[in-house]
């Protein structure tokens, strides 16, 4: 069993500088891989071996990283979304069974429906995600003259709000549905799923809300902490902690 390890924002900040010093352009994608070489004797091993992207190309990754850092800015509650592993989570989901359409009925005939009919397109989620990413970026360049990844944070935030509210038109793509029904749920899952999937690194979102995670053997706690603060909420445990 691995013991829980603490690697807070300050260590990540150190790694960021280390990566930049090494001339690496995409900080988030190289963080984990460079760590051992950086200071092998002083730092504990990293929590996740995740390095680089499987599904996202460089431009796609730039969009996703910029978006994730707007959705989850570094603040007193968590490091930035990228440093929390949220972009890696999304990439892994797209590259895996979910992205390829597991548990999704993909036979015709194809008929557009009401929103209440749910997803009715022939594309698997990875393909739909990337198509939307390209469409949103094209709309962004048209509106702002720049790619989404190059927008100021406040402008990027407003652009995402406009996307969610259906205010960004595209000739073929329903971008609001793309954002609200695919992108946003992936963001939420990235934050709150077990860290073993690459997001929620250091259980930072579980700590933020006070979800104690595993093992959740609460036969006595049910009465002892009914109506009271739960001490375990400050030190959540994840699958890795019991593996």
């Amino acid at each position, binding site marked *: 069993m691995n013991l829980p390890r603490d690697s807070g924002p300050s260590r990540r900040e150190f790694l960021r500088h280390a990566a930049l010093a090494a001339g690496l352009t995409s900080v988030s994608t190289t963080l984990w891989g460079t760590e051992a070489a950086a200071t092998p004797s002083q730092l504990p091993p990293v929590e996740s071996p995740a390095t680089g992207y499987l599904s996202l190309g460089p431009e796609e990754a730039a969009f996703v990283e910029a978006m994730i850092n707007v959705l989850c800015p570094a603040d007193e509650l968590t490091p930035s979304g990228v440093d929390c592993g949220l972009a890696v989570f999304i990439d892994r989901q797209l590259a895996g069974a979910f992205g390829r359409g597991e548990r999704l009925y993909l036979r015709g005939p194809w008929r557009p429906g009401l929103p209440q009919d749910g997803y*009715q397109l022939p594309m698997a989620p990875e393909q739909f995600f990337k198509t939307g990413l390209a469409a949103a970026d094209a709309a962004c360049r048209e509106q702002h003259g720049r790619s989404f990844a190059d927008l100021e944070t406040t402008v990027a935030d407003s652009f995402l709000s406009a996307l969610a509210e259906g205010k960004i038109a595209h000739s073929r793509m329903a971008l609001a549905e793309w954002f609200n029904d695919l992108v946003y749920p992936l963001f939420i899952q990235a934050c709150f799923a077990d860290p073993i999937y690459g997001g929620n690194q250091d259980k930072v979102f579980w700590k933020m809300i006070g979800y104690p995670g595993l093992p959740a053997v609460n036969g006595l706690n049910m009465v002892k902490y009914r109506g009271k603060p739960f001490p375990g909420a400050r030190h959540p445990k994840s699958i890795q902690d019991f593996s």
Partner: protein
Amino acid sequence: MKPLPQRSVVIVGGGMAAGLLARQLVHQGIDTVVLERGGDHRAEAAGRIPTQRDELRWDIRLGLMQDAASETYTLRRSRPEPSRPMRRLSAFLPGTGVGGAGSHWNGQVWRWAACNMALRSHFTARYGQDAIPADMPLQDWGVSHEELEPYYDLFEKLFGVTGRAGNIRGKIMPGGNPFEAPRQNEYPQPPLETTEAGLIFKATAEREFGYRPFPSPGANSTGTYVNPDGMRLGACQYCGHCDRFICEANAKGTPDALLYPWLERQAHFELRRHCQVLGLDYDRAAGRVRGVRYLDLITGEEYLQPGGVVVLAAFTMTNTKLLLTGGIGRPYDPVKGEGVVGKNFCYQINSGISIFLRDRWLNPFLAAGCTSTIMEEFDDDNFDHTGLGFLGGGSIGVGVISGRPINARRLPPGTPRWGTAWKRANAEWYAHNCAIGVQGSCYPHRENYLDLDPDYSDAFGLPLVRMNFDIRENERRVSAFCTGRAEQIARAMGATQLGPVVPRTSPFDTRLYQGTHITGGTCMGADPATSVVSPRLQHWDSENLFVVGASVFAHNSGLNPTGPLAALALRLGDDIARYVKNPGHLS
């Protein structure tokens, strides 16, 4: 197709209903085989720590559910409209594998109020001949609560059901459900602990309104328990991973924990896993089903399993599908209002109100599938419907069952959807919210029915079942009424803030989970013109064919359906044992 040696009883589906009726048959020494399309999940990652506690895999990605890529359902809300498949299963979630959806249920076990068994007679007697609208084909089930009571009792003992009796042999018991029909015995185990939110709800409902809430009964074991077959349960650990999860602590009464392991140790019983049933071999002239055709998923070959008796005990939808594809019984025709197969398809009409209580530690993760606090004042016909303009009602309660952080977080209205303010709201409210939920009844409507979709097929080349369904006027009124009652209590609970009050309405939304409590399609009754099976669950056109499950319900109530489903399945086991010894029409 390879024929196999005949078996006395062949059961389609290895879930709750099949396990219970097989248990009765095997106790009476009757040769029984169960055909189940899936395998066992208990020894897999789903049933072991730490992987059991994986919300993404089992809850969000539905790792234990029927694979929609292989088989799903289509929907159209009115007949002129083209159907569309539910490309992801979301609204309801059939299981697959030994135990069926019962393997990963919450465990809530109710005895339905006695009036449900004869609802048409009941409403007509109380409100007059014109009380039931012409487009609402309510019908009596042809069985009485008194006939089912011993089987409810047996099910509660087999599954170690916890709860507090409300009515023992006519005496109203304090702390239980005062609307309960008379029962012979107290529950086998005392109720689970009540949550903090449940205590607040109970105190408010009693003090402000004079309602009588009580702990929800269910198959989450309070302590260690040994059932009449010698099968054991451990004590519930309140881990908040019941629905959609397998209980690794063996504290949840499920068919795969309590029925099939016992059955497989008995002579004359076989559970044949990984067998996808494709159809029934029906001899129309003789009025008999010769056997069941299935694809063995291990060998890739098709077989015919002949049976002296064949029982459909699969998921609601599948029972209807196999009758329709087999051409057994007249399909329902909504235009003429004739025919029976697919008729009286019902759902439930559920709604909820989020409640935010800044100063109370509600700790939603200290919970189990049956740690709800429920009241029955506005369910069924427990209140006077005169002048209300609808029939039916719903149970109302605080159903704290999990604090799983992807799905069980609630945020106050007006919270931004991301950014620092969103994070602060999550941190502020996660431990300090709950919801009052309404589980509303759904009565049959002439246009709500099942048939075979002409355009869509499953992975085995069979047509998908098409749901012709929407939330009709009666159910919209039920939801508005019950949600309004829930709102009154929510406001009295001292909430810092409430979420939006949104009764359920049309169009039916396939994206939202609304419970797997779908019923009907093969309904039971005393009249062959309006029912598929007799009150003994024997098919009217095929003497050796029986159907069991929520598909035989003639309507849906405001409570979980497993209690009556289980009682009917146990009773059917005894009835088929009679039939095997002395075949013929069972009366």
